[in-house]
């Protein structure tokens, strides 16, 4: 039942607003609202009960194994939430003067430094509010760089076919054309194809490493050399940073600019769709273009770096300083982990993924890149099952929900048919991994005795499979009272 359907006309949760409505008699009547908006009219308890019960209909990290590839659904330490909401932090106004902000600013500055070190970049701006905004900022910096050199002809960004959709979308927002290059059967980029598209029109290339097919791009140094020779710059999509944290650094691989998804690698919560944080790091030549604000420290005081300090900056991407509260959570997480703990993130997420891959293979599932090491994630293809048993990746995904496991990422990257991109993360125990493999085996067994049971899944969730076609055709995206 919708919250609106629990309304009763005139019902007010009286503890939550002033006892009476103050006068607005200084405002002209024609600027005032005549009829109140149609909002729920419920008691405090009705609201609490409704949203508490709604919450229970979700899978989440706090309740389920959630091996969603490319998303790094790992444990979100509760301390990161509670400590970021301490009075003084949670109620600091974004325009509070530096004199009354040294606590907050010192956290932001320390976080910048930590991110610089662990990525091997020269400078970091924390302001982008998610990965995609980080990508936008990164590509905008590439553009600003070329333009600052009078190099105006570069109008193409190269993107592998396996790239996340945000990569081409972000490049287009910066006014670029997209050149797609293929991925080889071994999971690496086709370097010959790359050579063919490189040229004076090349502004740069956007890569992730490990890539979205779950393997490490072995020829990365050669690729960097080729792109740089052609006058282009290299962009690193940090969505997969969890795989290499403390093990190898994008800066050392030759990347000029990177974004990090703190809501993945640094374990800030995903909140049912955000907020995230997508700080960008750059090599020396891009430093002048970083988005403002950043934090400076002169040995005594912390302060905001603004447009006055950075006339070449691509500008500001948010009204204030990005998703500050999320950055605090990432900072707290970084301090909990420390240097050693960061390295262990890569180690144990990789261990978990390789273990699962091995077990899946042993159970007869087909790996997309059977001869490669898994990184923090790996792909299996269910094309055999789809063909022989008539149950596709989506059917497996839905049936997994009944087994109490969130489905891996399905049908991404698009180049592998019937794929599952599986990312267990370092915070899951061997039991959870084994359970998953067992569930997959059971589902295949079910399918072997007839596809229907699996195709009808899920059965144990609040709803069964939803009609997405109807959702799009008969668009119902805002409740209206029955006439």
């Amino acid at each position, binding site marked *: 039942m919708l919250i609106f359907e629990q309304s009763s006309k005139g019902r007010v949760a009286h503890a939550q*607003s002033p006892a009476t409505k103050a006068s607005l008699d200084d405002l002209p009547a024609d600027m005032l609202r005549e009829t109140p908006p149609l909002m729920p009219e419920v008691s405090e308890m009705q609201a*609490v009960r409704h949203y508490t019960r709604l919450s229970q209909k979700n*899978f989440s990290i706090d309740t389920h194994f959630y091996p969603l590839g490319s998303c790094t659904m790992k444990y979100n330490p509760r301390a990161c939430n509670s400590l970021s909401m301490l009075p003084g932090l949670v109620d600091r106004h974004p325009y509070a003067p530096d004199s009354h902000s040294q*606590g907050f600013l010192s956290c932001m500055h320390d976080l910048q430094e930590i991110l610089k070190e662990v990525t091997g970049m020269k400078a970091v701006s924390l302001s982008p*509010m998610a990965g995609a905004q980080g990508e936008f900022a990164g590509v*905008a910096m590439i553009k600003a760089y070329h333009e600052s050199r009078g190099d105006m002809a570069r109008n193409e960004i190269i993107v592998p076919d396996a790239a996340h959709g945000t990569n081409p979308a972000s490049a287009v927002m910066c006014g670029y054309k997209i050149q797609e290059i293929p991925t080889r059967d071994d999971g690496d980029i086709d370097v010959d194809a790359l050579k063919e598209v490189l040229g004076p029109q090349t502004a740069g290339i956007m890569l992730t490493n490990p890539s979205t097919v779950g393997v490490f791009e072995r020829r990365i140094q050669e690729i960097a050399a080729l792109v740089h020779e052609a006058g282009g710059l290299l962009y690193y999509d940090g969505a997969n940073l969890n795989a290499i944290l403390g093990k190898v650094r994008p800066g050392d691989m030759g990347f000029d600019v990177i974004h990090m998804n703190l809501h993945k690698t640094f374990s800030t919560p995903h909140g049912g769709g955000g907020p995230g944080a997508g700080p960008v790091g750059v090599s020396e030549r891009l430093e002048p273009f970083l988005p403002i604000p950043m934090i400076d420290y002169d040995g005594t005081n912390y302060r905001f770096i603004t447009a006055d300090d950075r006339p070449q900056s691509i500008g500001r*991407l948010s009204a204030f300083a990005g998703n500050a509260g999320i950055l605090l959570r990432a900072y707290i997480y970084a301090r909990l982990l420390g240097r050693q703990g960061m390295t262990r993130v890569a180690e144990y997420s990789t261990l978990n993924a390789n273990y699962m891959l091995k077990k899946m293979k042993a159970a007869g599932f087909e790996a997309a890149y059977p001869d490669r090491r898994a990184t923090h994630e790996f792909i299996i293809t269910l094309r055999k099952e789809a063909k022989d048993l008539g149950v596709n990746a989506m059917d497996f995904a839905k049936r997994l929900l009944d087994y109490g496991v*969130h489905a891996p990422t399905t049908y991404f990257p698009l180049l592998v048919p019937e794929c599952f991109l599986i990312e267990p993360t370092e915070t899951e125990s061997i039991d959870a991994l084994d359970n998953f493999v067992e569930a997959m085996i059971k589902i295949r067994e079910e399918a072997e005795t007839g596809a229907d049971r699996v195709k009808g899944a899920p059965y144990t969730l609040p709803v069964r499979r*939803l009609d997405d076609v109807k959702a799009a055709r008969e668009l119902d*995206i805002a409740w209206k009272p029955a006439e």
Partner: protein
Amino acid sequence: MPFIPHTEEEVRQMLDAIGANSIEDLFDEIPADLRSFSLDKIPEGLPEMEVAHLMHERARKDSNVHCFIGAGAYDHHIPSAVWEIATRGEFYSAYTPYQAEASQGTLQLLYEYQSMMSALMDMDVSNASLYDGASALGEAILMAIRAHRKSKSKKILVPKSLHPAYRQAANAIVKNQDIELIEIPFESATGKTSLAALSEYAGTDITALVIGQPNFFGVLEDVDGLTRWAEENNTMTIAVVNPLAMSVLKPPGQWGDNGADIACGEGQPLGIPLSSGGPYFGFMCATQKIVRQMPGRIIGRTVDLDGKPGFSLTLQAREQHIRRSKATSNICTNQGLMVTAATIHMSLLGAEGLARAAAGSHDKHRKLVSGLSAIEGVEVKFDSPVFNEAVISLPVDNATVLEALAADNVLAGFDLKKDYPELGNALLVCATEKHSAASIDLFIEKLGALLAS
């Protein structure tokens, strides 16, 4: 090993299964020469107890201020229930609701959110959030350009009375696509967007006009006049509004003759703490006919295999994960948790509660401004109705006043000198329903004493 469950024995067992000797072996595809660097500058890990110490200490440094800054971020009452529920693990630690069946909680909540925002703006549709108010304006401009097929100019009129940071961010977001933002001045007496200045563009191809309500100075714009001007000139209108104010002010859907085309803004006043400027959330509403040009996620109500109602992501063909380079926006992760809080907040307050909060806030502001303007030499800058905040001018240097009061833990307002030097020693001051009378009196008294000395 914080957060890593593996025992030594399990590690051994897993490596054996893999057929590797050590964890290090698993990284053998990485070129060896990339593997030498030092992380020595990153501090050692600390147990939660020690990090708690550290954070308490830092938080204490920024605590206990009397803050009269608004300027786009407002300290309203938030019911305790809001964040106690929003931070429940099931909301807090879930991903974007791609697997609809396992995400009905989030999905239904977002559908309710869309419904509430549409109602508050009196617009047909809403998306499920953008990053923040400023970037939402950038997206709204891009949307207007996609939606207004007949306009070729890519020219957008943006009042100078709009929040400077919004203008900067919107510019940073759209400038690489040959879009021109044209600044429209405000009347120096009223602080309102100058209709006279606007008339210069009458009859020319303008894609959209941006209208802030209230504007950055707190001043109420002549939204009907501005919207009608746009209607007459085949220009789309983009409303940038304070959503809490819309519980008492005429909402964008009712502006002019046909209402605004797009309404966007900062959702923060709806239950989001100040938190140094973020995470907040950008909202966006629009008319039904341009819904397919809207960026961001949209949730639809549908039915399941058994005909039972349910919710799922819809119109995904607009989005980057399907359309890639042809998507309406690159946005992927949005501000879901903030919207969760805002939805609970709006449910707890309802239309009446929101209106009382808005009116109560305005009332406190009036008390503040009347006290301040009674001080010798302090004047209210604009001769216009305002909502919730106002520009005052000081007889002495702004910066000196701000610093002196800050020494007493009174943060006296937003300094307008940098963005609007033409206003002289002007401060933008704000009070909300949360300010105690004592706190307001303290500000008035301190400023009075300072200026008398």
